[in-house]
């Protein structure tokens, strides 16, 4: 068995996951700035992409936290990592097609846990770590972000009552750009590191690196580039749902929401919680809509998203387990190649399906009509 080839496939797949992570999450930082016109869509995703790359280099203390804290690393093989990545990618692509901002981190964690269970049984999973470090923060973080954003929104409107609308909008656009940039930076630091951890784990499993090694420079660089390219591509469907679907946002709300997101994400990662940027951003956006008088919050859209969040861990886990079984039963390098081909096929299929209701930088702010997709007739020809 040529395990070098399997390792290469795993690294490529991990970078592909990082790429989906980037475009799935662009909206967390930039949706509100795009919706209020603080930044032109293309400029917003470019800025966010660059800041994600910078963020990937800001902190080097990469531990394979996702794996080591949640599963018995001794039970992890390259194929387990591969299956986990398959689960993460599949769920990310599926939710992107549906325009649902779901957590990339949960997709990855679910996938890895699922493939670990398939490989070594439930006892190989550190359930306590999974609940206390992943599930509980996931339940608590959206309400906290909601409250912070709501207080912030109330205060900024209250304090600028006597400022003219134009001056206020103009001023807060600058605040929005600053706060959204902080979220992008935090995202690069948090999420790029998760993939770095996965690749490092694969390298350790393959004995290319010693146990406890830090991520080599090429891993940091390639992960940073993958997530920033994905961010630049812009997950317009998700951006649309976050920026237009939940609430109609004005620039003061946008700044309050992004400040709340940045504060909650940075504080939580300081305490070692693997928070989902997506959950936090969604909570913040709902909070900024709730606290402004007369603003309409589309709770049905929020409800659909919350449902998707509940299904993220188990669904990605099932795909992860399935991916592991496929590669394991066929066996060897060939099994890994089959799984890889299946993933490429899935990705291509979903991409083709997305063309029917294409969302892009031109129509991302179109009037909300109940779903993330924009009807083909309304979509510009050069989509």
């Amino acid at each position, binding site marked *: 068995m040529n395990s070098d080839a399997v390792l290469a496939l795993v690294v490529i797949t991990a970078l592909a996951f990082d790429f989906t992570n980037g475009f799935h999450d662009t909206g967390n930082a930039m949706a509100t700035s795009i919706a209020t016109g603080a930044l032109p869509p293309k400029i917003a995703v470019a800025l966010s992409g660059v800041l994600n790359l910078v*963020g990937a280099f*800001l*902190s080097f*203390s990469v531990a394979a936290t996702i794996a080591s804290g949640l599963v018995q690393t001794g039970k992890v093989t390259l194929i387990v990592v591969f299956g986990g990545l398959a689960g993460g990618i599949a769920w990310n692509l599926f939710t992107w097609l549906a325009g649902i901002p779901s957590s990339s981190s949960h997709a990855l964690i679910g996938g890895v846990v699922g493939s670990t269970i398939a490989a070594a049984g439930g006892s190989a999973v550190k359930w*306590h770590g999974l*609940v*206390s470090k992943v599930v*509980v923060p996931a339940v*608590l973080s959206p309400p*906290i*972000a909601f*409250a*912070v*954003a709501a*207080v*912030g929104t109330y*205060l*900024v409107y209250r*304090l*600028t009552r*006597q*400022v*003219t609308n*134009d*001056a*206020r909008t*103009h*001023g*807060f656009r600058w*605040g929005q750009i*600053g*706060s959204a940039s*902080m979220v992008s*930076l*935090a995202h690069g*630091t*948090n999420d790029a*590191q998760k993939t770095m951890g996965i690749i490092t784990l694969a390298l350790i499993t393959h004995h290319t690196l010693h146990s406890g090694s830090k991520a080599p420079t090429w891993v940091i660089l390639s992960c940073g580039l993958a997530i920033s390219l994905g961010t630049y591509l812009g997950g317009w469907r998700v951006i649309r749902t976050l920026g237009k679907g939940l609430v109609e946002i004005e620039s*003061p709300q946008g*700044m*309050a929401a992004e*400040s*709340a*997101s*940045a*504060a*909650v994400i*940075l*504080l*939580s*990662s*300081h*305490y*070692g*919680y693997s928070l989902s940027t997506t959950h936090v951003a969604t909570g913040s956006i709902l909070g900024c809509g709730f606290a402004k008088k007369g603003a309409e919050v589309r709770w049905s859209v929020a409800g659909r998203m919350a449902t998707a969040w509940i299904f993220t861990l188990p669904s990605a886990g099932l795909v992860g387990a399935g991916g592991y079984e496929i590669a394991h039963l066929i066996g060897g390098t060939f099994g890994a190649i089959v799984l890889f081909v299946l993933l490429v096929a899935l990705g291509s299929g979903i991409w083709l399906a997305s063309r029917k209701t294409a969302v892009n930088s031109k129509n991302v702010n179109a009037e909300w009509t109940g779903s993330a997709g924009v009807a083909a007739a309304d979509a510009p020809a050069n989509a």
Partner: protein
Amino acid sequence: MSAMIIATPWIDFSALWKIIVVGLLAGAGLPALFAVGLRALNFRSGVAVSSDDAHVYGGNPAGLLVGLFCFAVVLAAIGWGIYFIVHSS
């Protein structure tokens, strides 16, 4: 001592309340401070400003000073935030 520890194995309350309090101070306080700065800059122009010169601020030196001070504090907080990212996790 053990009676004082309120953290359970499932939820770390000691971290939770810090995240909430500091989160409110930074996440809601800084935008509020930014709003105060904006208000100060527009102190005079709060009456009637045509949309053309909506971003011409000033006219009140004290307001300008207060505004700049607020923005400086916000910028300093952002700098601290970046320092925080680099030196944690």
